[in-house]
C-alpha cells in the first residue's frame, strides 16, 4: 500500500488522471476503427506547435513570478515580427529568421518593462499579469486597424485599410519547419524540423538553467530572502525571467503560426496563455517548481488528449463535446494547482 501511495505521489494526480483518461480514449479510438497513424501524426505536429509556448512558462516560474498569464504580451510581439516578414515578402527560412530577428528584441523590451511593473507589486503577479495581457491584446486591436501595412496579403481585400483578422502564410513561411527533413514512417508523417526546433529550444533553456545566470535566477525564485542575504539582486533576476519568458512566447507563436498556416490577429491571442499554463501543470509543475520534463510530458498529454478526444467523441456523441472537455480539463488543472498547498504567497 505504501508503494502504491508513493507511486501516486511521485507521478502526481494531474498526470495520472489525464493519462488514464487518454488511455481510455485511445482504446475507444482503436475499437472504433479510427486510423491511429493519422492521430499520431497530429499529436506530433501539435507537440511541436505548442511546445515552445509551454516552454515559455519555465523562466517565469523559476524566477519566482509564478505562471506567466501575460504570455499574450510575447504573442503580440511575435505577431509583429511575422507581419513585418510578410510585408517585405520574405519566404522560406529567410522569412522565418527575419520574423525571429524582429520579434525577439521587441519581446525583450516589452518583457523588461513588464518585469519592472511586476517588481512594484510582489504577491499578485498572476492576476495583474492576466489583465495586463488582456488589455495589451485589446489595445493592439486598435494598432492592427491603424498600422501602415500595405502588402495586399495583409490588409482587408475591400476597403484597403486595417489588417485582416486572419492572415494566410501560404506564400511566406507556411510549414517551413514542418517540412524540413520530414519523412513518412508506417503511415505516420513526422514533422522533423518542427520537433528538432522544439528540442533545440528546450536544450537552450536547459543549458541556461545550468549556467551561472540560470542558477542565480533559480535561487532568487526559490527563496527571496535567502537570495537577498547572499547578495543576489532579486528584482533583476525576476526581470530576467520575465524577459526570457516573453521572448519564448514571441518565438513560440511564430512557430505555432507557421505550422498552423495562419496568423491570427485581433482577439485571438486573448486566452493564449491558458492552454500553455494547463499543459505545464499537467506535466507536473506547480506555481513554484518546474522542469523541462514537465514541459515535454505536459504538452504531450494535453495535446494528445485534444487530438484523440475530437474524433472519438464526435463518433460517440453529437455537438462540440471536445471543446467543452478542453475547457473543463484546461481550467480544472489550473484550479488544482492554485489550490494546492505550496507555501508562500504568490498570486
Amino acid at each position, binding site marked *: 500500500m505504501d508503494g502504491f501511495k508513493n507511486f501516486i505521489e511521485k507521478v502526481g494526480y494531474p498526470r495520472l488522471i489525464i493519462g488514464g483518461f487518454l488511455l481510455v480514449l485511445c482504446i475507444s479510438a482503436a475499437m472504433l476503427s479510427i486510423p491511429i497513424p493519422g492521430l499520431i501524426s497530429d499529436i506530433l505536429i501539435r507537440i511541436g506547435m505548442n511546445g515552445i509556448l509551454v516552454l515559455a512558462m519555465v523562466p517565469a516560474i523559476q524566477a519566482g513570478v509564478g505562471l506567466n498569464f501575460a504570455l499574450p504580451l510575447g504573442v503580440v510581439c511575435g505577431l509583429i515580427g511575422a507581419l513585418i516578414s510578410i510585408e517585405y515578402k520574405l519566404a522560406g527560412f529567410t522569412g522565418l529568421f527575419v520574423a525571429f530577428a524582429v520579434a525577439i528584441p521587441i519581446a525583450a523590451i516589452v518583457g523588461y518593462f513588464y518585469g519592472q511593473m511586476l517588481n512594484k507589486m510582489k504577491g499578485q503577479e498572476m492576476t495583474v499579469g492576466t489583465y495586463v495581457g488582456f488589455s495589451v491584446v485589446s489595445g493592439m486591436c486598435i494598432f492592427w486597424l491603424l498600422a501602415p501595412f500595405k502588402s495586399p496579403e495583409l490588409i482587408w481585400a475591400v476597403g484597403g485599410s486595417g489588417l485582416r483578422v486572419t492572415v494566410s502564410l501560404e506564400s511566406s513561411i507556411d510549414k517551413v519547419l514542418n517540412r524540413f527533413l520530414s519523412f513518412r514512417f508506417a503511415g505516420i508523417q513526422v514533422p522533423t524540423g518542427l520537433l528538432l526546433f522544439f528540442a533545440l529550444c528546450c536544450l537552450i533553456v536547459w543549458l541556461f538553467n545550468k549556467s551561472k545566470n540560470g542558477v542565480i535566477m533559480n535561487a532568487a525564485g526559490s527563496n527571496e530572502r535567502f537570495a537577498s542575504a547572499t547578495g543576489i539582486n532579486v528584482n533583476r533576476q525576476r526581470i530576467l525571467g520575465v524577459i526570457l519568458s516573453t521572448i519564448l512566447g514571441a518565438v513560440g507563436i511564430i512557430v505555432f503560426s507557421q505550422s498552423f498556416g495562419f496568423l491570427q490577429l485581433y482577439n485571438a491571442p486573448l486566452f493564449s496563455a491558458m492552454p500553455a499554463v494547463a499543459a505545464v501543470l499537467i506535466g507536473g509543475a506547480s506555481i513554484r517548481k518546474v522542469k523541462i520534463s514537465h514541459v515535454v510530458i505536459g504538452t504531450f498529454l494535453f495535446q494528445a488528449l485534444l487530438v484523440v478526444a475530437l474524433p472519438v467523441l464526435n463518433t460517440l456523441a453529437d455537438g462540440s463535446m471536445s471543446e467543452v472537455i478542453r475547457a473543463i480539463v484546461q481550467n480544472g488543472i489550473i*484550479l488544482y494547482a492554485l489550490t494546492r498547498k505550496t507555501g508562500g504567497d504568490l498570486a
Partner: protein
Amino acid sequence: MDQNVKVVEVKTKRQITVDYMYRFIVPVVFVVLCGIGYNLSGLQSTFVLNEVIIRLARNSFLVISLIIPVIAGMGLNFGIVLGAMAGQIALIFVTDNSFGGLGGVLIAFLVSTPLAIIFGYLVGQVLNRAKGKEMITSMILGYFANGVYQLVFLMLAGTIIPFKTEKLILSTGMGVRNSIDLIAVRQSLDNIWKIRPMQGLAIPMVTIIVIGFLCLALTFFLRTKLGQEMRTVGQNMHIAEVSGINVDKTRIIAIIISTVLAAWGQIIFLQNIGTLNTYGSHEQVGLFAVASLLIGGASVTKATYGQALLGTFLFHMLFIISPMAGQNLMGDSQIGEFFRVFVAYGVIGLALLLHAWQRKGKK
C-alpha cells in the same frame, strides 16, 4: 516586535496627499475620458442620459454584489459568473414552464437562490484553499464552471434533462438554443412603475428602488455581528482567528451572499434586455462588474456603494459614447469598440497595480 501589533501610523503631509491621489486617480481619469468622449460623440444629451439610467438600473445590482467579498478580504470576486449562471438557469426554467410577468421574475428569484447558495458554497471552499490567490483562482473557477455549464446545456439538455417547451431545444434534439426570447418576463420589473419626466426619458423606478433597498440592507447587515466579523476577517485574518472568529466559515458566507446577489442581479439584467444568450450572457459579467467597481475608485480591499454606482455610471457612459467618438475622431467606430474593451481590461490591471504599489509602500 510582533508584526500583528497595530502601530498607529503618523502620516506625513505628503503621504496623506499621495493617498488621496491614489484613491481618486481612476475616477478622475474616467470623468475626463467621458467628458472628452461625450463632446466628440455628438450624441444628444437626452439620449445619453436615458441610456445611462437604463444601464445603471440593470447593471448596478451585479456590481454591488462584489462588495461583500472585498470587505471580507477576499478581493474582487470574479466568481460571480457562477451566480450569473444560476440566474440564467432559473430563467431557462421559467421560460420552459411558461411562467410570465412579474410572477415569472419572482419565481426566477426563488429558483436561482438555492442554486446560487450551492455554487457559492463550492466557490467559498475552493477560495479557502487558495488564500492569497483568491482573484486569479475565482477567475479560473469561472472559466471552469463555464465548461461544466456548457456540458450541461449542450449535451444533457433535451436528453437526460427533459424540457417541456420543444422550441427551446435545438433541432438535433440535444442542447439548448443559443438565443432564448424572454418576452414573457421582459421588463416585468421595469414596467411596474416608470416615470417619464420629458420626451425620450424613461426611468424604471421599481428597479432603482430595489437597488436602493439592497444598499440599505447591506448597510444594516454589515452592522450585525456577522458583518462585523467579516470586516475583521478582511482586515487581518490572523487577529480574527485569535479573537475566536471562524475565518473559513465567515469567508464562505461572504461568497455565498455575493453569489446569490449576482444571481438576482443577472435576472434583473436579463429581464431588462429581454433576450438570454444561453452561452454568452454570463461570460463577461465578472469582467464588467469588476471594471465598474474599480473605475468608481474602489480597491481590492475597500469598496462602497457610492463607488459601485459611480463606477457603473462612468463605465457604461464610456460604452455608450465610445463608438460614435471613435467614428467622429478617426472615421472608424470599430476603434471606439476596441478602445472600450481595452479600457475594461486596462483599468483592472492598472487598479490592481496601483493597489499593490500602495500597499508595498506602507511596509
